[in-house]
């Protein structure tokens, strides 16, 4: 039976993995883009019919290309040189204020030079809305190419690859300009061969706020004096790092902004010295940041990035810089391309911005708009094959103007032909003597162009990429089949178990027709699956899990009270009590509790879980929508840092004490156990050192001593855990001592003791070390919730071991898993990518390593579910194997099967249920407004949770298998010896 179950499970898991990868491949496609680079055809009217993609003209030498472009465009380039300064993570709000109000006085004063430029109308600034996901690499791509990449660019953010699409920098390079890059090495990864000179700094070392920027600024003097480059890219990371460490209101923020302002002043001064004043200076940020300094999501705070143009063409006699000028981040690409005289990148859907063209003549402006429209028209033709300019113009006369009911294509068509015809009439009136008439024609033409461009741009950005439906449906079918496999396996098992139990405890409490807790688990899973279809339940998922978990434990409480009432009833009580003390190793038997005391313990453990759960819930209140809700973590963030530190130390001590108390329950106090305890204490000491050292270092960039402490911890902890796991089955006696004295046979009941002890030690070591590791890695504010989750784990196990007849084993496993999910959200995780703690992922890592920091990030995010999976090992050890006594002789495979099947199957089943139903939800929601901002990030979390479940189940299964194998071997050699 065991082998069959294992086979089915593995088959189901494989099916699930196959379905999941198929779905990911289909749902997050690498966005289809136009290949190749824009060339001289950009200056011609796009022709109808097939899009000429393949034909490539022989590449001209750069100088000829440059003059060709100049000739074709009809406008001389406005600038020859470009300085693009990227300030990572600077919200536009810091410079431009919000809602027509200037920024706070403090902010104004921290950027005096920039503000003076704005006030003097020497610069034009925009709130350039960035598209989610607001992480650096996709945003850089959007800025230089004018296109938004696929959603999975986030996943590639940690594995940057060369950028092959048409983009501004390549265009500039093609006309022979020299490029220099200083700053974030993402640029070098995107454009490995483009830059003449480069100095990359790593963006992954988030704790450093000084060094990263110094490494850029130290070249500034040389580069500003050098005349050989035409494009200088500066990417400053420090401000983003300041945000990650201390949030928007960090004390380091104004200082960092002053530093940035100083750089702006220096660059601007140097560009003014330039002959003819032909340098364009652009200051942009790739994304904003939340109050807490994170980014990745799609809130206003995160998408509000800056685009600031400084140059002679921008200047105007009057301006209102704090007017909440809105733009899109992608608008940067066409604007810069047109100002520098290169073709607009092929996949761009940005619109040229008006203010940087201030000094140009009306004709030149209209020409630029025309070029932009042609480029967008080509892109439209690629998306809508039948779209054609001439047909639009021809059909225009016959169509009754009934735009509202027309299709989008018709509307685009109409807007386009209106724009072109008004441009035509403006051209006809060029010779007109009356300035006002000319200006009027220019005005309508420009308005019509912007009307078309904005509409087309919006349509292109919102247009969902075509998803191969059959692929997605077959992926879902695979997942459903896998889910059904698991379900049928579980139902077969449960049926088998309940049959075998009927003849044993026919009168016991277990045989009531249906149990409230089981009904709740089923109904709760049903409600949870339903709730996934609503975006607000996805955004506020923490409520669902906390509510379900607390309800389940409240039901446990009523059941415990119920059984107490029953138990104190003398006629009914005895039967149940008798079954306890047979052969169980548990917390109860270790202390030889009287039934009365046991009842008190039973109630207390549940109350602990409930109250701890409520505190954890209050620690991080809001999800995505209600981030502003007051909660304990916000309270502590404002409180003195010593409070947080003392809370950290308290929870550290509590973890150590709880571990020590649990160890004393092992009646075998061998040297080995003491050794495990000592290494734990030592590791705890290291964590304590790290906590203390870290407190000082929040203001300093990198503290090498803390990194080495963390590394020591990693080494010692991993060594001692693996030693414990490997050695513990060899240490404990196979048969308990009293059993051996009573009857020297190898009866199964007695043999179970050794493996119990060993599993118990392994489980408690797992959980306690995991707790210490998390205390090291997590934000200081999360220390208490971490301890509480540890406490919940232990007290649930104690509760389940106290009364084994009260709840079925699978309900216990599910309860532990629910606790894990509730704790996951209690640690401040949400379903938005912004809540991932990036800073913690670099603790103890000296050199940048994608894999290591990725693993650490995963461990931080899934701290609580993994803790509960490790707790299941503990739970396995105290589990009652009821019908072991009926076995004639020892059968280890049977014990293994009994111990480990349910704790492995149920997490897999529940996860598979969530995964499958959420995949279906995502498929149904694929055209929903929130699909990229709410549902897709959640899907990434669901995938990560699947990985987490696999890891957890693998650990449980392997630990149990290893223990059983060792004990089997030892029992056999023992028998051989005694014979």
């Amino acid at each position, binding site marked *: 039976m065991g082998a069959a179950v294992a086979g089915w499970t593995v088959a189901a898991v494989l099916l699930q993995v196959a379905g999941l990868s198929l779905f990911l491949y289909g749902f997050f496609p690498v966005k289809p883009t136009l290949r190749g680079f824009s060339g001289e055809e950009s200056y011609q009217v796009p022709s109808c019919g097939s899009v000429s993609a393949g034909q490539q003209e022989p590449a001209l030498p750069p100088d000829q290309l440059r003059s060709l472009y100049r000739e074709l465009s009809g406008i001389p380039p406005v600038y020859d040189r470009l300085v693009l300064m990227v300030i990572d993570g600077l919200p536009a709000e810091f410079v431009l204020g919000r809602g027509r109000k200037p920024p706070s006085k403090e902010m104004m004063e921290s950027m005096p030079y920039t503000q003076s430029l704005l006030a003097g109308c020497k610069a034009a600034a925009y709130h350039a809305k960035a598209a989610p996901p607001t992480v650096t690499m996709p945003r850089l791509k959007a800025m230089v190419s004018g296109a938004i990449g696929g959603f999975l660019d986030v996943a590639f953010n940690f594995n940057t690859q060369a950028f092959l699409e048409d983009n501004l920098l390549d265009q500039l390079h093609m006309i022979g300009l020299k490029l220099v890059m200083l700053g974030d090495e993402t640029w070098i990864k995107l454009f490995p061969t483009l830059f003449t000179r480069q100095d990359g700094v790593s963006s992954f070392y988030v704790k450093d706020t000084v060094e990263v920027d110094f490494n850029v600024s130290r070249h500034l003097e040389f580069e500003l004096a050098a005349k050989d480059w035409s494009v200088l890219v500066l990417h400053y990371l420090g401000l983003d790092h300041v945000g990650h460490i201390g949030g928007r209101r960090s004390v380091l923020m104004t200082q960092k902004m002053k530093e940035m302002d100083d750089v702006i002043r220096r660059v601007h001064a140097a560009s003014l010295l330039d002959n003819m004043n032909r340098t364009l200076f652009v200051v942009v940020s790739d994304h904003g940041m939340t109050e807490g300094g994170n980014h990745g999501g799609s809130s206003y705070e995160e998408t509000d990035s800056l685009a600031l143009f400084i140059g002679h063409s921008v200047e105007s006699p009057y301006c209102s810089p704090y007017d909440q000028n809105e733009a899109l981040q992608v608008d940067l690409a066409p604007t810069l391309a047109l100002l520098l005289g290169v073709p607009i990148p092929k996949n761009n859907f940005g619109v040229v911005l008006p203010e940087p063209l201030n000094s140009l003549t009306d004709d030149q402006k209209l020409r630029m708009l025309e070029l932009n429209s042609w480029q967008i028209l080509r892109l439209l033709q690629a998306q809508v094959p039948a779209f054609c300019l001439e047909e639009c113009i021809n059909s225009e006369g016959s169509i009754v103007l009934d735009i509202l009911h027309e299709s989008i294509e018709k509307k685009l068509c109409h807007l386009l032909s209106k724009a072109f015809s008004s441009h035509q009439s403006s051209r006809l009136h060029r010779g007109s003597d009356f300035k006002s008439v000319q200006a009027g024609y220019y005005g309508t033409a420009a308005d019509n162009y912007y009307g078309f461009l904005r509409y087309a741009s919006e349509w292109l950005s919102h247009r969902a990429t075509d998803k191969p439906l059959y692929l997605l449906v077959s992926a879902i079918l695979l997942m459903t089949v896998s889910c059904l496999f698991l379900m049928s396996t579980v139902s077969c098992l449960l049926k088998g178990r309940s049959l075998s139990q009927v003849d044993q405890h026919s009168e016991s409490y277990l045989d009531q027709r249906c149990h*409230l807790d089981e009904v709740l688990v089923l109904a709760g899973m049903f409600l949870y699956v339903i709730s996934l279809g609503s975006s*607000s339940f996805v955004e506020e998922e923490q*409520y669902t899990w906390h*509510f379900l978990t607390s309800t389940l434990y*409240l039901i446990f409480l009523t059941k415990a009270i119920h059984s107490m009432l029953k138990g104190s*009833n003398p006629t009914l009580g005895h039967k149940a009590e008798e079954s306890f003390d047979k052969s169980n190793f548990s917390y109860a038997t270790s202390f030889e509790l009287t039934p009365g005391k046991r009842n008190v313990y039973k109630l207390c453990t549940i109350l602990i879980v*409930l109250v701890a759960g409520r505190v954890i819930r209050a620690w991080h209140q809001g999800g995505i929508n209600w981030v502003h809700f007051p909660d304990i973590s916000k309270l502590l963030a404002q409180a003195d840092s010593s409070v947080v530190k003392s809370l950290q130390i308290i929870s550290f001590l509590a973890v150590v004490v709880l571990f020590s108390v649990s160890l004393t329950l092992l009646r075998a106090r061998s040297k080995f156990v003491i050794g495990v305890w000592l290494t734990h204490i030592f590791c705890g000491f290291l964590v304590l050192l790290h906590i203390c050292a870290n407190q000082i270092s929040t203001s300093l960039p990198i503290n090498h001593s803390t990194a080495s402490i963390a590394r020591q911890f990693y080494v010692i902890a991993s060594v001692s855990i693996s030693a414990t796991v490997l050695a513990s089955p060899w240490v404990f006696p196979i048969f308990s001592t009293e059993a051996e004295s009573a009857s020297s046979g190898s009866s199964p009941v007695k043999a179970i003791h050794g493996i119990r002890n060993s599993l118990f030690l392994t489980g408690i070591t797992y959980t306690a070390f995991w707790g210490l590791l998390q205390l090291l890695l997590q934000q200081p504010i999360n220390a208490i919730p971490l301890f509480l989750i540890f406490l919940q784990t232990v007290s649930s196990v104690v509760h389940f071991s106290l009364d084994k007849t009260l709840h079925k084993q699978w309900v216990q496993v599910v309860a532990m898993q629910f606790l894990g999910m509730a704790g996951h959200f209690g640690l401040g995780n949400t379903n938005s990518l912004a809540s991932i703690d990036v800073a913690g992922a670099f603790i103890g890592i000296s050199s940048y390593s994608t894999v290591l920091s990725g693993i650490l990030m995963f461990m931080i995010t899934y701290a609580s579910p993994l803790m509960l999976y490790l707790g299941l090992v503990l739970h396995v050890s105290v589990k009652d194997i009821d019908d072991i006594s009926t076995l004639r002789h020892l059968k280890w495979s049977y014990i293994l099967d009994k111990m480990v099947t349910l704790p492995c199957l149920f997490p897999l089943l529940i996860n598979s249920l969530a995964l499958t139903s959420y995949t279906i939800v995502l498929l149904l929601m694929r055209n929903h407004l929130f699909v990229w901002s709410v549902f897709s990030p959640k899907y990434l979390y669901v995938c990560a949770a699947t990985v987490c479940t696999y890891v957890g189940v693998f650990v449980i299964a392997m630990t149990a298998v290893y223990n059983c194998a060792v004990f089997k071997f030892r029992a056999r050699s023992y028998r051989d010896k005694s014979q």
Partner: protein
Amino acid sequence: MRAEFSQISALTAAAAHVLCFAGLAAAHALAGRGALVSDPALALRLVVVCEAPIVIAVFSYLRRDTQSCSFFKAVARGLIGLPVGAFLNAFGAIVLGAPVGIKYWIATIYWSLAMSLLTFVPAACVFGTSKIDWQNVLSHSIYFTPIDVENYMISAPCHGAVLGAWLGAWPMPLDWERPWQEWPICVTYGAVAGYLVGMSVSLVLIAVHKRRVRAKTD
């Protein structure tokens, strides 16, 4: 058999339920339309004030051990049961995530008193300290195994109110931004609706039970 002498008729049970319903209706009429949304504390206070005397009086009259326990003793049990039940309800609600901020205290207190009147007080008045009856209140076995009319009368509305309150909390995280999504408004609506459903279920169960008993005796 015990059921012989303390069995109450279906009509009495129906009358008791009608009286309780009348209390709720009176509170509703006094508070006026929409008062629960605009001022939950006031509306809940009215519910407590109107419902408490009715519930305690009615169920003390219907007390189980008529011989050994006087009417006033049962009333005293109800009066003690009121805060105890309120405490239990408040504990449950807070553990399930009810807000604990200062501005919610008053509403929470009145809510838990009202919930106590719907759930705990009737049982306290009727059963006193009879363990076996409390066991029945705590379990759902009454729906499967026939027992006394009192158990149906007490348990079904109690279970209905708790279940209704639990279900009533589900719309709270939705982003509809309606005033009734606040604590404790929709939970109260759910509880009252569940209570009414429970009442009718209990009447049906009692009717079915009576018919079965009559069929058996015939």
